[in-house]
């Protein structure tokens, strides 16, 4: 299979993730969508890695996974903290950090 198919799938998943982030208000869903976007990136990286025939893209993908794990840990921690303080689980309501 040529690389274009992988990239098309990757772009589709990325756009679905982006669309989810822009339209949904639940932080949990936003995190999930973020994960979709990261994995779309991973897919592209791995596809490029195969096309070029070396391992650099795969190593990048592994690093992205590590970052994604950290990001999920922080994000979920934030959500738990929001829940514990009985704040609304809605990013549009959480807008105290405005200028």
């Amino acid at each position, binding site marked *: 299979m040529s690389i274009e198919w992988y990239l098309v799938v990757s772009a589709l998943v990325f756009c679905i993730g982006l669309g989810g*982030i*822009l339209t949904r208000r639940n932080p949990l869903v*936003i995190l999930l969508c973020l994960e979709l976007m990261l994995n779309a990136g991973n897919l592209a990286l791995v596809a490029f890695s195969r096309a070029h025939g070396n391992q650099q893209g795969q190593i990048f993908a592994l690093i992205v996974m590590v970052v994604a794990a950290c990001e999920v840990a922080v994000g979920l921690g934030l959500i738990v903290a929001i829940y514990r303080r009985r704040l609304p689980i809605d990013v*549009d309501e*959480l*807008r*105290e*950090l*405005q*200028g």
Partner: protein
Amino acid sequence: MTTFSLLILLAPLVGCIVIALTFRVLPSKLHGYMGTLAIAVAFAASIGAFLNLQDRPREERQVVVEVWNLASTAGVDAQLSLLLDPLSIFMALVVSGVSMLIHLYSVSYMGGDRGYTRFFAYLNFFVFSMLLLVLAANFFLLIVGWAFVGAASYLLISFWYRRRTATAAGIKAFVINVVGDVGLVLGTYFIFKHVGTLDFLRGFARVDQVFTRNEGDLVAGCLLILVGAFAKSAQVPLHTWLPDAMEGPTPVSALIHAATMVTAGVYLTARMWPLFEQAPAAADVGAIGGCLTLLIAATIGLVVTDLKRVIAYSTMSQIGYMIMATCSAGYLGGLFHLMTHAFFKALLFMAAGSVIAAMAGEQNLDRMGGFRRAMPFTFACMVIGGLALSGIPPFSGFFSKDEILALLVARDDWHIVLAVAGYVGAFLTAVYTWRMIFRAFYGEAVEPARELEGGHLYHAPTHTNPATGEEEDTDVGFPGPEHHIAEREGSMKAAMSVLAVLAVIGGVVQIPNVTNWLHDFLEPTFAGSRYYETLEPSNSVIYGGFTLGAALGLAGIALAYRLWVVQPERPAAIRARLAGVHSFFVHKWYFDELIDTLIVRPVAWCGRFGRNVFERVVVNGVFVGGTSGAVRAGSAAVRAAQSGFLRYYAALLALGVTALGLYFLLAAS
């Protein structure tokens, strides 16, 4: 010599610092003795330096001690070096000696004041500054000392800092002294530009080579130096601060504003003799200024009713004599009078302080009288000081004043006019001095005097400012509740006794045809002077001057006795007849008003104009307002973007990244 010179300077400095740092730790009474001890050490070191100097051969009696080379760069040699020659040792002896006695006097006199410790810290700082001034071996250190004494004077005049009049007087003194400082610095520049060194001895050695006689730059430099000397020594027209400086405590008036600091101008003109001898035009200006001051101050002294201000005008007048002498090449007379004046004027101030204490702070002569029997010791001191000041033989002032006038006559040119003015001044001196003494000590005894005769020291029911009559309390920043008179305080008595003895016998150092000690001692400093050796009054001038001086002094006393003791109603009649002249003198020749109109008001107007136009409109409106307005508008725009909507940020991010990607795609194709 290094040890002695450093000890002279460091003792008062260490005294000041230690007193200031231990003010909470040690009992305040101790600080008075610590201050006195520090000055005593400086005095002992001065004597040591004096003896050391006398041991040297004549031509080696100008010792420069280089303490530290601060900066020698770009042709400027700013060194911390001290010059020990007969002139500086002479000044150091007078300054530290008189200061020591005044410290001793203050130990009791200031006893009731809440600022006792502060007083001695300031006083020690003053003595340090003054000694630095007289020991400086170059213009650089001289200017440092010059500014330090100005600051010390300000601190001590405003010592009672909650008294409005005192702080105003302190500011006035400081501002006028700064005018003098500027003059001195600019004058130094004129000299330095040509001789190329700040050092006195090296610079003076080159004066005759680089300057022709009366060369423009030299005259300008000398005139500017004279501005400094006139401001510090309270000479017309920069004199108006000195009478106001009497707002300070009496020991301050005695020490700074009579005996030592105000004579710095005399020292300066004597120290700069090579410059002034090469610029006779500037010297003449100085001599005439001194002469005017001595007459103007004497006439004001005749009418002033404030006890301390009478002595202050007398100080101005006597310093006029000294400046007149040193600017007319009569260095010996000027310095001799400086010494004797320090003795008898400090004594007069101390006696006046005792009287003021007996009056519970009142200084008005109109309310005094009859203290003769109540305060015999103070009266005796006042009489001795008065006789010395009026130039009655054989008191010290007689010889020193006569030395000045004889040297003026010996110049054998137009300086004779100054000598005549000096004799007129001598007569006026006797009149105003004895007017003060007769009014305070003769006549009907006032209530405080009667109470004192009954063994009780008078205390005023309310404490008031003697200048304005405003009510004051006796807290910090005001005079203390207690008063101390010489009759009851050992240390005051001791200090006054020593000064009284010196005021009597001080003239012995230079009696024409008998002793020549001061002349011989100072000679190394003035080696090479055109006049110092050659200006020798003839015997007829000397003895004629003696007779005339004594006669004028006695006549003045007799007139004062007639006017204020025999016919006490006469002065009022004379005052009524000469109302115009009297009011002219009472208003101090309108100098304050003149300076106010010519300088203070225009400067204040410029200041208001600057504030209203330049400061408010240009600086505040355009510069400050413009900058802050631009920043504020920019930040408002940025702030509007920070809505707090997470999804909005995400959209912007996505848009940005897309735009960037598109840009690269377009750029690549």
